[in-house]
């Protein structure tokens, strides 16, 4: 058995299981119900897992793993495959012992149990979460020969929780209140300053993802969700919200998550994930296997709202064709695009370019580099190029 495109291709397909024969699984019974009270993927899908890039971080505890976008369909990321990012490992929190304190410039400081929070009227929204470092390894040059590593710090779930606005109303924000410090219960006690404006607009305090309680890696039992903003602001294992009159300038908004410019100055509070897109099929993990009909597919998203258009180029950005947006086109959610065409072995320089509802057009790499240089780490949302060889092989290249 060799491996190809993420799946082992058994040199031996057993002809006894092919028609006209009755395959083995048609001649016997399978396992019964509740054999797996909580189900798992097929053992034939073992290769569909989160992966990390070990050289990025000193160890696995303050680290990141990526979602296998190359294997995903639709716009929902199944919970088992949502990318991981944390700074003190995944805490094992007893939800009965978890508390959220809301205090600072409020009329009534409050403390909530999980039960209290789940009694509030809930909202459920499909939103992407993206690490602002997504693609950040590629500021200076193409480094990663895999979609999972170039774009996999990205997931999209249906999140359920309470609008932070509702909790703030319950506590009564004083007129001087302008910023909110959100803090985690994990060993890193991750903290970020969130402008009150965002909190009142669409921030959620979330306890469920894709229908079930949050996964431990995503903040069980409670996290913040700042739709469209850099993932790092969506504090996991949320235990404290303090209202203040100015930002805190903590480590994660000074030392990290600031964007260093070529002139040595740095941008702060770079919250929004601007529109981005990538072709997910084909990609290095999913090369073209046969000439003929092919559906080019990919994902687009914007922290500023809905996706309006996606265009595709086959020639490295010289000419463009509009793609079709498929399925649901939701605010700050992954949006799938598609273009059907034919491939007869011609080389391609494949690109996608998204436009969001504000009219902002996903920039070229040259445009971004021109303003931001090569050391800003975060928010690299430039047009991405896959080179398709006449063999169908797909590699990661950069065009300037």
């Amino acid at each position, binding site marked *: 058995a060799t491996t190809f495109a993420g799946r082992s291709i058994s040199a031996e397909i057993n002809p006894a299981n092919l028609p006209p024969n009755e395959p083995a699984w048609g001649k016997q019974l399978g396992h019964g119900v509740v054999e797996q009270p909580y189900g798992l993927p097929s053992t034939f899908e073992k290769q569909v897992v989160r992966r990390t*890039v070990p050289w990025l971080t000193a160890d696995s505890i303050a680290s990141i793993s990526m979602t296998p976008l190359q294997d995903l369909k639709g716009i929902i990321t199944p919970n088992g495959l949502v990318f991981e990012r944390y700074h*003190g490992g995944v805490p094992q929190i007893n939800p009965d012992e978890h508390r959220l304190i809301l205090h600072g410039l409020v009329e009534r400081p*409050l403390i909530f149990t999980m039960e209290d929070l789940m009694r509030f009227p809930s909202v459920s929204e499909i939103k992407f979460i993206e690490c602002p470092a997504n693609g950040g390894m590629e500021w200076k040059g193409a480094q990663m020969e895999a979609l999972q590593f170039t774009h996999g710090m990205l997931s999209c779930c249906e999140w359920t929780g309470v609008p932070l606005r509702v909790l703030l109303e319950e506590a009564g924000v004083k007129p001087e209140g302008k910023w909110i410090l959100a*803090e985690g219960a994990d*060993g890193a006690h991750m903290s970020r300053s969130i402008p009150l404006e965002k909190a009142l607009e669409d921030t959620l305090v979330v306890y469920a993802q894709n229908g079930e309680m949050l996964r431990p890696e995503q903040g069980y039992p409670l996290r913040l969700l700042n739709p469209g903003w850099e993932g790092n602001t969506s504090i996991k294992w949320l235990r*404290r919200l303090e209202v203040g009159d100015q930002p805190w300038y*903590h480590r994660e908004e000074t030392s990290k998550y600031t964007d260093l410019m070529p002139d040595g100055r740095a941008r702060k*509070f770079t919250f929004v994930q601007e529109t981005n897109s990538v072709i997910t099929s084909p990609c290095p993990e999913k090369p073209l296997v046969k000439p003929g009909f092919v559906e080019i597919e990919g994902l687009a998203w914007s922290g500023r709202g809905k996706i309006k258009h996606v265009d595709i180029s086959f020639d490295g950005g010289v000419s*463009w064709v509009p793609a079709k947006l498929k399925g649901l086109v939701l605010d700050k959610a992954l949006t799938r695009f598609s273009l059907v065409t034919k491939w007869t072995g011609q080389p391609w320089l494949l690109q996608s370019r998204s436009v969001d509802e504000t009219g902002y057009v996903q920039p070229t790499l040259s445009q971004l580099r021109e303003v931001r240089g090569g050391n800003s780490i975060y928010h690299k949302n430039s047009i991405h190029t896959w080179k398709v060889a006449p063999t169908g092989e797909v590699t990661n290249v950069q065009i300037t």
Partner: protein
Amino acid sequence: IMGAFSHAEPLGLGETATEEQIAGWDIDIRPDGKGLPEGRGTIEAGEALYEERCATCHGLFGEGEGRWPVLAGGQGTLKDERPTKTVGSYWPYASTLYDYIRRAMPFTAPRSLSDQQVYDVTAYVLYLNEIVEEDFVLTKESLAGIEMPNKDNFFVDPRPDVKNTRCMDKCADPKKLMIAGTLKGITPVGHFVEGADAPAASHDAQMEKEREE
């Protein structure tokens, strides 16, 4: 029979948080010193503590061991090809250092230092960065007064900062396209291509791999 009502009034969920409850968790520090507890940090006490609890990872002089973070040095490198961003070269406020050590360091034992110990070691890391002198005493008041070298070099996000257009045809000169390939040998493997000296796709598997080699 009770019908529906709209909730302009508070819903009455949750309880009043007591001052005591809040005090234990209210660990944050702000640039203006808000949040700082009482205490006096000295370089001497900080040095001993740093060497015992921090140096294995961050190096005796804050230079960083292995791939653990560098804490000192790097001044004047922010425009370099490879900048070194440290407390001294990059951080705008000294309060952030107290706050971060208090909440997250030492890495393997977060929240194990007393407030006083955090004062000491914070003073020492500032000293390693040549921000304070050997005889400096770090207190609530003195900390807020420290001016960090890079403090004026942060500005609020000005994005959108680039303006692409939705050009559909003849958007570039095909002859002038520069195409650069991927660095070889650094993409983690073990799942879709066989790679010789590239890393594995998890830290454990990578250590395994290195042991085998």
